[in-house]
C-alpha cells in the first residue's frame, strides 16, 4: 500500500499499462516535457521516450482522428484532452469514427482508444474548464464511459480502460486530483481481470433509508453527506461506469432502501440522472416508496467561478433531497 493522490495514481497506472503493452502510446497537448497541465503524465516521456509519449500539435480533431489510424495500425492510443471544454473540436471524430468504426467494419477492426478528459468544476476556473459533458458520450453507442472516484479506483480503472478493446472515454474528476488515498499497487496484478470489474458499480457506504447514486467528483460529496446525515441513513453507490451502467448493483440497493437520489454536477435535463430515473422507474417501480429525485447542476452554461458553489451539488443539497424523499 502506498498513499497517492489521484494524479500520481493515474500516472502509476499509465506507467503499468505502458510496461505491459509496448503498443500503448500516449498522445496529447503538453504531455511530454511538461507532463500535462495537471502533471498526470509527469516523467513518462523521460522514461519511455518521445515515440511513446507524444506532444501533439494543438488540434483535438487531429489528436482523435490520427488515433483512429494508429489504432488501425495496431497501436493502443491513450489520448489526453487538456480540459473538458476542449474535447468538442474532436467530438466529430469521437462520435462518427471512434464510436462506430468497429460496427461499420462488422467487427473486423477494434478501436482500443482511451480518451482521458479532466472534467467537472469546483476549481475556480474560467469558462470551458469546469464542464461535465459525460452525457453526450454516454448517449453515443459504441463508447464506454468510465470515471474514477478515488486514487485506488483510478489506478486500476485506467489500466482496465487501456486494456479494453472498446473505446473508453475516461473522465477524471479534476477537483479530486489532489485527494490522497491508499493504493494497493500489488493487486493490480498482471491479470487485470482478477481485480474488481470496472463496469460494476460499487457500494462505497452502506445505509438503509435512501440510495444515493453518484460518480466521479460527487462521490466524496455524497460520502460526506452520508456522514453528516443524522436522521436519514444513506447508502452511497459509486456508479463508476456510465456506459454501461450497472443496474444490477444499483437496483438491488434500491430494493433494500426503496428510495433513490441521483447526484451529478452536469445539468439535469437529458443527463445521466434522467436515464437512471427512467430505468429504475421501469424496472423497480414496485420497490419505490418515492419518486427518483435528482440533485444536479442547473440547465445553464457553467457559471462564472465566483458563483459556481451555487451551481454545484453540495452536502446540504444531497441531505435536503434525502430528507425530502423520506417525507414523501
Amino acid at each position, binding site marked *: 500500500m502506498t498513499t497517492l493522490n489521484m494524479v500520481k495514481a493515474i500516472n502509476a497506472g499509465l506507467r503499468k499499462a505502458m510496461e505491459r503493452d509496448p503498443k500503448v502510446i500516449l498522445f496529447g497537448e503538453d504531455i511530454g516535457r*511538461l507532463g500535462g497541465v495537471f502533471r498526470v503524465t509527469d516523467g513518462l516521456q523521460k522514461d519511455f521516450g518521445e515515440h511513446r509519449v507524444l506532444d501533439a500539435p494543438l488540434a483535438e480533431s487531429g489528436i482523435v482522428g490520427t488515433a483512429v489510424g494508429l489504432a488501425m495500425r495496431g497501436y493502443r492510443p491513450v489520448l489526453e484532452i487538456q480540459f473538458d471544454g476542449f474535447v468538442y473540436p474532436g467530438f466529430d471524430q469521437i462520435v462518427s469514427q471512434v464510436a462506430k468504426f468497429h460496427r461499420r467494419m462488422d467487427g473486423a477492426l477494434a478501436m482500443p482508444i482511451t480518451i482521458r478528459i479532466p472534467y467537472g468544476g469546483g476549481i475556480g476556473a474560467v469558462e470551458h474548464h469546469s464542464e461535465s459533458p459525460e452525457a453526450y458520450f454516454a448517449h453515443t453507442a459504441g463508447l464506454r464511459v468510465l470515471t474514477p472516484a478515488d486514487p485506488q479506483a483510478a489506478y486500476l480503472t485506467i489500466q482496465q480502460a487501456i486494456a479494453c478493446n472498446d473505446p473508453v472515454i475516461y473522465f477524471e474528476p479534476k477537483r479530486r486530483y489532489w485527494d490522497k488515498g491508499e493504493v494497493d499497487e500489488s493487486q493490480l496484478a498482471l491479470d487485470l481481470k482478477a481485480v474488481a470489474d470496472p463496469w460494476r458499480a460499487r457500494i462505497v457506504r452502506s445505509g438503509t433509508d435512501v440510495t444515493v447514486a453518484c460518480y466521479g467528483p460527487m462521490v466524496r460529496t455524497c460520502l460526506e453527506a452520508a456522514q453528516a446525515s443524522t436522521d436519514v441513513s444513506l447508502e452511497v453507490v459509486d456508479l463508476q461506469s456510465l456506459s454501461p451502467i450497472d443496474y444490477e448493483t444499483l437496483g438491488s440497493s434500491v430494493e433494500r432502501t426503496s428510495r433513490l437520489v441521483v447526484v451529478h454536477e452536469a445539468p439535469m435535463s437529458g443527463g445521466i440522472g434522467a436515464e437512471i430515473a427512467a430505468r429504475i422507474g421501469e424496472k423497480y417501480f414496485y420497490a419505490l416508496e418515492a419518486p427518483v429525485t435528482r440533485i444536479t447542476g442547473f440547465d445553464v*452554461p457553467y457559471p462564472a467561478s465566483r458563483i459556481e458553489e451555487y451551481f454545484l451539488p453540495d452536502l446540504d443539497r444531497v441531505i435536503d433531497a434525502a430528507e425530502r424523499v423520506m417525507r414523501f
Partner: protein
Amino acid sequence: MVDERVGAVQLLTPEGQRVSHPEYDINLSDAEFRGLYRDMVLVRRIDTEATALQRQGELGLWAPCLGQEAAQVGSARAMAPNDFAFPTFREHGVTWCRGVAPLDMLAMLRGVSNGGWDPNVHRCGPYSIVIGAQVLHGVGYAMGVQFDGAEDVAVTYFGDGAMAQGDVNEAFVFAASFSAPVVFFCQNNQWAISQPRDRQSNIQIYERAAGFGFPGVQVDGNDVLAVMAVTRVALDRARTGNGPTLIEAFTYRMGAHTTSDDPTRYRLAGELETWRLRDPIQRLQVYLSRQGIADRSYFDQIEQEGDELAERIRDDVRAMVPPTPESMFEHVYAEPHARMDEQRSEMLEYLSSFEDAAG
C-alpha cells in the same frame, strides 16, 4: 535559438534605430508616436498589476501579454473605429486600444463574468478561450461586411499554437474563397504553453498563407512601427476588396503561459535574456528621446499615470462583487424559456430555506 526574423519587416531596430524597408513605411505625428508609447506602457502596467492581483488571490487566473505590447498595440491602433477585433485571452493590449476599461478586462479572470464588455460598443469580441474559434467568427463577420457593401474590416487575433487548429485552417479557406475583408493577425510568441512553434508548423507561419491563396507577411512583432505599417497595408487591402492577409508578428511570450504555468519546466532562461534585449517599449523610448519627440519628463508623466491606473485597479477590483446566484439563469436564452423560470424559482426557494432556518 535561430533568429528567424531574417526578412521580417522592421522599421525600428532593437537599439532604437529607425531603418527603412523597401515596401513598408510609416509617418506619424509626434503626438501619435507618444500615444503608442503611452499605450504600451499602460498596457504593461495593467498586465503586471493583474499578475500581482492573481498572486494575491484577487483573480483566479491571468494570461500575461508581457513582451507582446508592440504587436498588440501596433495592430489595434492601425484599425479604424468601425473595424472589429476578435481577440484571445492574452490580447489585453488590443482590448485597451478598443477602449475596454481595464476592470472589464479582469471580470472574466476574477470569475464574476464569462465576458466583460459589450462587443458592439467597443467593436471588439470577448476574450476567446477555445483556441482558434474566434478566427472563424472574424471571417464570418467580414463576409457580412462584404454582403452589406460596407468598408469595415475584421481583425482576428490568434497564436502560433492556433495554427494547428482545424478552425483556423478552415477560416483561411473561407476567407480566401469569399475574398473576405479580414486580417489574420498571428502573434508567434514562440510557445503554445510548452510547445515550441515547430510542433504546429514546420515552415514559418507567414509562409502558410501562400498555400491558401493570399499574402503572408512576417513582421518584427516587437517593433510597434513596423507592426502598425504592415497592419495598415493589410487593412487597406481588405477594405478595397482585395481579400485577406496573414500577418505573422514575430515576438516572444516573456511571462508564463498563465499564472498557473511554470515555464522553467520546458524552456531555457537564456531565451528570455535574448528577448529582453528586444524589448518593444525600450526601443521606442530610445527612438523618441533621440528624435526629441519625448523627454524624461514625458516618460515620468506616463510612469505616474501608470501608477495611478494600477492603484485604481487595485482598489476597484476588490469592489467587483460576484453576481447574484440567480443571475446564472439570465441570458441563457434571448427569449423566455420555461425551464429557466422553473429552476430559478427552485434555487431561490432552496436558498431562502436557509434564511428561514437562520431567522
